[in-house]
């Protein structure tokens, strides 16, 4: 593993890793049950070199921003490395956004280069937003048919400069990435992350969950996600490990990948982990009474023997069939992006499969706390990582207050939004907006949110303001969207829902026609962005002098209503 303390940038560390681990397998790409590609670190370097050269020949300079919109695949990582090699700033965008959202973020980020896949570009090029992102000079499209009309874009595979490109150095405080934590509506939240943020975070994480050559990480979370970028790219690469990409994320192919590639680590969002639990539970429930009794005894023995810390070798012998389904070499499942229910985490730990649960924010450079498994604690999100100062602001009588963090991994700010940056980073401390407390053993427990947002079980951050455009010109006097738990605070991090608060014109009521209108608009939103009910207000919304809705005051007013009675389901 490289000593990242010696490095100034992501690009410099990756460059050395490609040489140091030249003969190790770097990437495996599988499409359904077919191996599509296997690359060593040397192959990876050879693939990236002509692209870096071509980018430089096309005028790419240090600090230029380049976006990637791709599903998880080898060309994502090769392109990212080429961008860092050229001293560029990577803008990793979520491929699941709509074309309109993509164009908005491409403009906001100031990207001059876009690397994308043919099916995504086909949709983007056909949408009418391109003129809004005039900053975009070069578009590279992967896997396009040779005869395809690329609307001015270039074939990624054809962009090959010749000769050795010079490596462009960057310093630790230079911008490395712009990562959108959410906010595709009126106020994009682009986290400006420095090279230092990544170098420090990677050192902290790999000190607890190290990679080494021969280890294989299954990359399922999107590569643009802060977690996958760290543990599915930068972390394994600087340790010489292997990253496995699946082009099809159907459950049956994901299941097959574990034994086929002998996976060591995988990152999942809570929703997928819970589904995995349901599937396993159904299999256990289908066992004959006799086999079930034996199985339960083995689980009890495993629980007793792993009470203080995991014993992987022992668990793999005791619960052989369960571990074989996971390939028999799984060290841990990393779960993140949203809050996981303790009973789900405990379910896996009892089977001898540790779940590395933690807590983090993109703004904090991925993880703030992580469970070190000494001992496993499913009821907490673990202890602060090395280098993280974590405090509880203004704790109440139960010790619960807003979690605040200070470390070298904290973003430098939100891109082009000094006002929001000043609200979020106060005197060097990142105000997370999440409520928590430390237990006597130093483990952080989370209890809910202070801010008006939700995080879905799929790890999506949703800011209600961003969804309001879908209800524009709704025939009511005024409306706004809230996270229900922001109005009626709950000590819970799961089951969060959005509600539409409406004020009617005089004499108006919730007719069937209006209800249909709301449902129809709602159904056009992506499923995880949909509202679950409406709340009717009996007085005008409080507004500022500039007529903006005072959301906090309105929330306080609505909080006087009984939640169960006030929320009318759609």
């Amino acid at each position, binding site marked *: 593993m490289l000593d990242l303390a010696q490095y100034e940038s992501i690009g410099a560390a990756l460059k050395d890793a490609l040489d140091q681990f030249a003969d190790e397998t770097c990437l495996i790409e599988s499409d*359904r049950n077919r191996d599509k590609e296997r690359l060593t670190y040397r192959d990876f370097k050879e693939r990236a070199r002509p692209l870096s050269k071509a980018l430089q020949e096309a005028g790419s300079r240090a600090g230029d921003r380049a976006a990637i919109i791709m*599903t998880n695949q080898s060309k994502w990582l090769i392109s990212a490395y080429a961008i860092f090699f050229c001293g560029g700033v990577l803008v990793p965008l979520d*491929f*699941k956004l*709509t074309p309109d959202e993509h164009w908005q973020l491409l403009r906001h980020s100031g990207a001059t280069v876009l690397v994308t*896949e043919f*099916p*995504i570009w086909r949709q983007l090029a056909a949408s009418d937003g391109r003129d809004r992102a005039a900053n975009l000079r070069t578009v590279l499209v992967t896997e396009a048919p040779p005869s395809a009309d690329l609307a001015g874009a270039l074939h990624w595979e054809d962009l090959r400069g010749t000769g050795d490109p010079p490596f462009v150095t960057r310093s630790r405080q230079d911008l490395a990435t712009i990562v959108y934590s959410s906010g595709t509506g009126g106020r994009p939240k682009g986290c400006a992350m420095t090279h230092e943020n990544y170098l420090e975070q990677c050192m902290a994480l790999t000190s607890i969950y190290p990679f080494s050559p021969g280890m294989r990480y299954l990359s399922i979370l999107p590569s643009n996600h802060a977690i996958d970028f760290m543990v599915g790219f930068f972390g394994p690469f600087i340790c010489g490990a292997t990253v496995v990409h699946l*082009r*099809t*994320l*159907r*459950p*049956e192919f994901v299941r097959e990948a574990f034994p086929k590639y002998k996976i060591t680590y995988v990152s999942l969002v809570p*929703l*997928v982990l819970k*589904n995995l639990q349901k599937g396993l539970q159904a299999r256990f429930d289908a066992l004959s009474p006799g086999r079930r009794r034996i199985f339960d005894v083995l689980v009890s023995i495993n629980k007793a023997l792993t009470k203080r810390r995991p014993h992987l070798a022992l668990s793999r012998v005791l619960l052989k069939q369960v571990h074989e389904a996971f390939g028999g070499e799984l060290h841990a499942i990393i779960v993140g992006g949203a809050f996981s229910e303790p009973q789900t985490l405990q379910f896996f730990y009892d089977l001898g499969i540790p779940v590395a649960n933690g807590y983090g924010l993109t703004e904090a450079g991925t993880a703030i706390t992580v469970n070190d498994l000494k001992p496993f604690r499913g009821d907490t999100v673990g202890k602060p990582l090395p280098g993280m100062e974590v405090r509880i602001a203004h704790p109440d009588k139960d010790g619960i207050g807003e979690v605040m963090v200070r470390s070298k991994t904290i973003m430098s700010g939100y891109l082009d939004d000094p006002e929001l940056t000043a609200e979020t980073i106060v005197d060097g401390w990142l105000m997370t907006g999440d409520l928590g407390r430390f237990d006597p053993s130093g483990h952080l427990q989370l209890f809910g949110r202070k801010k008006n947002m939700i995080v879905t079980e*799929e790890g999506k951050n949703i800011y209600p303001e961003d969804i309001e455009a879908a209800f524009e010109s709704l025939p009511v006097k005024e409306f706004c969207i809230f996270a229900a738990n922001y109005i009626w605070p709950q000590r819970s991090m799961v089951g969060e829902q959005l509600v539409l608060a409406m004020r009617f014109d005089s004499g108006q009521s919730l007719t069937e026609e209006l209800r249909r209108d709301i449902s129809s608009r709602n*159904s056009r939103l*992506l*499923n995880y962005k*949909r509202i679950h009910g409406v709340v009717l207000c009996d007085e005008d919304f409080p507004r500022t002098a500039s007529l903006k809705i005072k959301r906090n005051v309105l929330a306080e007013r609505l909080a006087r209503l009984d939640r169960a009675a006030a929320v009318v389901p759609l």
Partner: protein
Amino acid sequence: MRTIEQTTQEVLDLASKHFQLPPGSLAPDDDFFKKLGIDSLQTLELLSRLENYFGIELPDYEVQGVSDFRTLASRIQSRL
């Protein structure tokens, strides 16, 4: 060669069967997330079933952002 109407009907029939709903209870413009109360993972399971039935491979990106049976059927039709 199937018509788009036939493909749509077969998609509806298969989804009803997969989620154990009475025949005819689903319509082409129904939002399957809402009507079936399913999440994105269960949608992937349904897609696998549809692929096997129609004998096609439907890449994940083809169904990105699709939430109604009519559009889903049109994506399948384009690969038949």
